[in-house]
């Protein structure tokens, strides 16, 4: 049963590998960015699932007197930061992609390499 208790890690690994596969295989630069986003999301999922406590609730202090189990707030904070950083990096990457498209007229990696090699 210990094997089944860690299914959150399986999902995380599967997502991460899908992202990695997209980044390696697809020649289109926009597609690579999307693959990178999936990869990042898998890491977010990993952190958040590590912070989850069974029967826990969101880490907002309740005032009804009773004791509550809260999930770990620390991964949430880290991932909040990471999401914003992820967006700014993908914005920068997309700006670079637009410039590359202006210079080479394509977004395919192979065609860009050919254009580089051509005199």
């Amino acid at each position, binding site marked *: 049963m210990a094997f089944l208790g860690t299914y959150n890690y399986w999902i995380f690994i599967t997502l991460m590998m899908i992202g990695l596969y997209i980044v390696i295989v697809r020649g289109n630069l926009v597609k690579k960015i999307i693959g990178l986003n999936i990869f990042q999301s898998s890491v977010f999922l990993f952190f958040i699932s590590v912070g989850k406590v069974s029967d826990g609730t969101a880490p907002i202090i309740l005032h009804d007197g009773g004791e509550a189990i809260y999930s770990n707030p620390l991964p949430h904070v880290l991932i909040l930061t990471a999401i914003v*950083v992820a967006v700014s990096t993908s914005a920068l990457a997309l700006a670079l992609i637009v410039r590359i498209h202006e210079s080479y007229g394509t977004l395919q990696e192979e065609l860009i390499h050919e254009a580089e090699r051509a005199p």
Partner: protein
Amino acid sequence: MVVAFAIIRRRSLIATAMLSSFFSLLMAGTFVLLDAVDVAFAEAAVGAGITTVLMLSALALTSSVEVQPLKSNWLALVLTIATAGVLFYGVSDLPAFGDAAAPAQRHVAPRYLEMAEFETGIPNVVTSVLASYRGFDTFGELTVVLTAGIGVMLLMTPGVRRRRNQKETDEDAT
């Protein structure tokens, strides 16, 4: 995961952008289920919203169809599966999902949960940790956002571009 698989197969980039937005929305739902409501907000607004807008506007400025057909790449597949194997081996001795006695749950988190409201006066622990205990992290995050903003501005401003093009033509002329 199904959506992610669909993203691999699709060749129309607009469809891919919409699928990735949908993927972010599903991630936000998952975060709510995992008690991370603040993260779910951020993911829904930023991942499903802003990233899609950025993606679509970038596609509007470039081409939106992927020309290359999907060819299977055995080396990449083998590499991916090998990495997955290593990761599966790595996670095999991590604590079980939802385990309250896991090391991650016992370090500083209990102190935050007990003292955060008393020390900062904010009932939402995530906010108090973000803005108070780890304010410097957030400051660093804002620095990253500022840097990215400056980079995007430099890359996309028409004035800078025109000047550069003019310089190139001047150099060609001389």
